[in-house]
């Protein structure tokens, strides 16, 4: 190899630069692995309408179904897997238990860098303030 030394040195420097963000992440947090955000769970209610795993994985699909059932089909009662009925409403059912949007919805959504537009129209349980525009 004619410029072997230079090429290998260059490659090592390149790889080093490539790894800087990863190393930096490890150094600053002490743990490179993603940490699940701590959500504030309702105090007086132990069980959500479906299992935690289901809600974690499927809540967006469920909310989509809820919207269509309530609005389009006029079916505003949801019967869950255990046969228990719930009123289909984001503001009046979900957010009555999860009474702090900032401590529940926002935590994961911010971490995952998603911004659902629910709250453009729906009113968060904390209420709205006239200053924030």
């Amino acid at each position: 190899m004619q410029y072997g030394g230079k090429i290998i040195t260059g490659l090592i420097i390149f790889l080093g630069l490539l790894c800087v963000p990863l190393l930096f992440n490890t150094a600053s947090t002490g743990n490179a692995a993603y940490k699940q955000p701590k959500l504030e769970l309702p105090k007086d209610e132990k069980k959500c309408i479906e299992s935690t795993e289901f809600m974690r994985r499927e809540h967006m699909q469920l909310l989509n179904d809820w919207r269509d059932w309530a609005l389009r089909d006029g079916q505003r009662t949801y019967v869950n897997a255990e046969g228990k009925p719930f009123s289909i409403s984001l503001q009046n059912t979900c957010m009555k238990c999860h009474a702090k949007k900032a401590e529940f919805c926002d935590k994961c959504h911010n971490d995952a860098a998603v911004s659902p537009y629910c709250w453009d129209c729906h009113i968060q349980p904390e209420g709205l303030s006239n200053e924030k525009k």
Partner: protein
Amino acid sequence: MKKSRRNFLKFAGLSAATLCFSPAAGALAAGHGTPHPKPNADQLKAKRWAMVVDTRKLNTDEAIAPLVKACHSIHNVPDIPGNKNIKWLWAGSYEETFPEQPNNFPSEDLERRRFILLCNHCDQPPCVRVCPTKATFQRPDGIVAMDYHRCIGCRYCMAGCPYGSRSFNWGEPRDNLDLKALNKEFPTRMRGVVEKCNFCVERLAQGKLPACVEASNGALTFGDLSDPDSEVRKVLKENYTIRRKPALGTQPSVYYII
């Protein structure tokens, strides 16, 4: 077991029967466990909702104002000064209400009367025909409803509606709402969607009459037009009523007693 022809046929028959019945049995067993939606138990039901306005009782701006307030406060409808206002319920003169039935010498009483105006929830709604996204649609009970999630703000429905019942959110409606006094049980709208009266579907689903009817002290009657014994049909039978712009064939569900 002896391998006889008789035994083979028995076994085959039994297997076929099991195959036939197992899906039904499975469905029966799963019926309880599958999450599903159903209508509210206490909802009010009708084949076609309709309203009758008694303009002999309800005919001044002062009398109409509390009804408008009741509607607009529970539905978080903003009051915007100027020509960008949002209205679900409002008032108009005889000429504005019935432009197809003009009279050059109307009675003084009729000339002074103010008429409450709202979405007519037409049987043949032009707004539903023109909506490109099906954001506005007709429910089986005749209510012309809107899905604000799907509205793209093209305003075809506003061009289609001959009654001016639809309003466009030119700006963020929350900028003109008293955010401390919002009804937290109902959403607001956002910039760029069209909105209108929804005949209080959310209240009907809870077994309550529309807010304006409740606030009207009997001047508004609400009920099922398809039921000959209903309150609205009784009122229609006993009084002379007209509807707005009948020549268009939209078949409004709002009737006015003159």
